[in-house]
């Protein structure tokens, strides 16, 4: 069953220079019990996408077009009052910084109980406390610590408390925005395992938003790679990491050191994503892409389908003809418009 179906979604931010197209025509769906990863660099629109789905866009942000269907109800059509009912009850969010997301002047118990009572009026205190105990057990916290304040918890414990709160109402969709980025590896490992276990228990679907391709590789079934407000590539996690067809995915993967490999050169993709108020007409990655042609610079790429992947690249069909090997060398990535522009600037300065 499809839990979430997003189609042609456009989310814009009002700026002085005009609307910035943070999310620009994105379509995807999440099935029941499925984990979808969203990866991309800062500013690619991944967090905006999550905020639009749960309905917490800032004042200057708005849905310009498209629909967000949650269990066959289009959330974008709902008035605020009705929409609010979905928040936490059906769709919840684990924020990146638990310190900012938890209220410092209330104990953890008070905050979870408040969420439960707001959404399920009539819930007795005993029942609410049972939920607190159950959730603390689920995330591996000592229930006796529920009466502590957030500052009495360590970073990892706060993140667990945040997860306990997000799951207290057993939502069918959990949006996890960089759930472990602020933590060290050991804590990250504990929490990722915990999230997986809980999910099977309450059978919720999850959208994991992160810049860390390793986290996605380990927790998700399917992955969307976003670039400058658009989907670059989407597909099963094994294919995205095994045989991607978009040059951006290939480059992104090579930018990470892998503990299992010695002596690998890290490759950087020269340049920056385009600005979103007036994005370039063709493929948004063209400037930083070693395969870019005039066609790429002018026309938006259509979707190419290979092995369950959806790859928005004009030259996706040529990726198998040796590009994968060439993509392992720094020379390949020096041969882009962005890299040439940087070189020209440097020479101009001498």
């Amino acid at each position, binding site marked *: 069953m499809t839990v979430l179906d997003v189609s042609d979604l456009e989310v814009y931010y009002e700026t002085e220079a005009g609307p910035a197209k943070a999310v620009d025509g994105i379509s995807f769906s999440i099935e029941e019990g499925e984990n979808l990863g969203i990866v991309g660099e800062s500013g690619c629109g991944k967090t905006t996408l999550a905020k639009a789905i749960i309905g917490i866009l800032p004042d200057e942000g708005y849905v310009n077009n498209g629909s967000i269907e949650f269990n066959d109800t289009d959330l974008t059509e709902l008035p605020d009052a009705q929409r609010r009912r979905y928040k936490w009850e059906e769709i919840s969010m684990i924020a990146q910084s638990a310190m900012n997301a938890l209220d410092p002047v209330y104990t953890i118990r008070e905050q979870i109980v408040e969420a439960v009572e707001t959404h399920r009026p009539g819930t007795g205190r005993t029942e609410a406390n049972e939920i607190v105990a159950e959730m603390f057990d689920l995330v591996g916290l000592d229930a006796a610590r529920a009466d502590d304040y957030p500052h009495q918890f360590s970073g990892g414990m706060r993140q667990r408390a945040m997860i306990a709160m997000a799951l207290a109402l057993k939502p069918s969709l959990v949006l996890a925005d960089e759930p472990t980025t602020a933590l060290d*590896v050991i804590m990250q490992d504990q929490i990722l395992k915990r999230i997986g276990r809980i999910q099977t228990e309450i059978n919720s679907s999850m959208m994991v938003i992160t*810049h860390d391709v390793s986290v996605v590789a*380990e927790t998700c079934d399917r992955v969307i790679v976003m670039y400058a407000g658009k989907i670059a590539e989407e597909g099963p996690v094994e294919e995205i990491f095994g045989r991607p067809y978009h040059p951006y995915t290939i480059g992104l993967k090579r930018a990470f050191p892998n503990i299992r490999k*010695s002596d690998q050169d890290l490759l950087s993709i020269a340049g920056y994503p385009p600005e979103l108020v007036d994005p370039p007409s063709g493929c948004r990655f063209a400037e930083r892409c070693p395969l870019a042609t005039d066609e790429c610079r002018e026309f938006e790429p259509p979707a190419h389908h290979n092995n369950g992947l959806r790859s928005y690249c004009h030259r996706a069909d040529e990726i198998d003809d040796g590009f994968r090997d060439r993509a392992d060398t720094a020379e390949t990535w020096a041969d882009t418009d962005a890299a040439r522009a940087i070189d020209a600037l*440097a020479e101009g300065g001498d």
Partner: protein
Amino acid sequence: MSLNTPMDDETLLEVRNLEKHFQVDEGIISSLLRSVTGAEADYVHAVDGVSFDLKRGETLGLAGESGCGKTTTGMSLVKLHEPTDGSIRFRGRDLTEADDDELAQFRQNAQMIFQDPFESLNPRMTVYDTIAEPLRIHDVRNETARVRRALEFAELQPPDQYFNQYPHELSGGQRQRVAIARALVLDPDFIVADEPVSMLDVSLRAGVLSLMERMTEEFDLSVVYISHDLSLLRHMCDRLAIMYMGKIVEKGPTEDVIENPQHPYTRSLINAVPVPDPGIGRERVELGGEVGDAIDVPSGCRFHGRCSEYIGDICETEEPPLEGKADFEGRQEVACHLYEPADDVVEARVGETTDTGDDSAASADD
């Protein structure tokens, strides 16, 4: 300090039994009570006996969980903290005994790159002033030429274009490059880099890391990298030291430590690192709990409460020394009772008991 330590030009930095303890903040009442009762103040044992050598041109990675003391160690190395005990010798000169001139010279030679370029740069200083400031402090000439060269090296080109910019006008990657240019402008020999890329966006990390690799090579720098990210340290470092609760538990060549980890803690740490490849299943032994507080440090091995290889009372009563071991192939030193000390360690120890009784010399050299 032991005089049998080799003193060739190669070894830039010798750290022996470095300790840094912080007194726990207490309220005025408990402080008064303590003065009446005569009770001892509580101390956080952030760094509690760390020894290592750093050779010229060598890169050493300090790894461990949050709170293991790796950052405090790094800050003590460049004299941002005054160590509680132990010694740091730079080019053979003990810094605790150094006079003001020698210290000034040391500070010129030792620089630090911080984690967060959004906080480590003064928002009210231009890029030019930020980089020129160390030159002014140390009264170095050719200011403009040196600033320009540092910016060029950090790939901020053309340099003059950046002179009058303020940190808020720069991206995170550019800011960290300014921080690197500032660290390099005095031509140091030694740099401590504390999580240099963890605040940067993915696509920018590789660029800053390759810049740092180039910097190490071209300036023949010795660098201590501090990070919890072992994938990054494996990529950047010749040697690794794994820290737990203020102590080094395993130390040796990076390949040996990563490919063939011996200390149970090192194994858990390596196993916890996610791999960007869904095909590779990794052994997932969960390490429960967190680093305890370093005020009442556990007796014996500090890891015994979380250790999966706990072998009995000895773990709780006797502190395992960091030493070469006889039971495995790797060249690393390990502080764990699971292994028997290597033959040369045993011999050295016999020699010592008759000799000076200094226990650091045996375990310190790699």
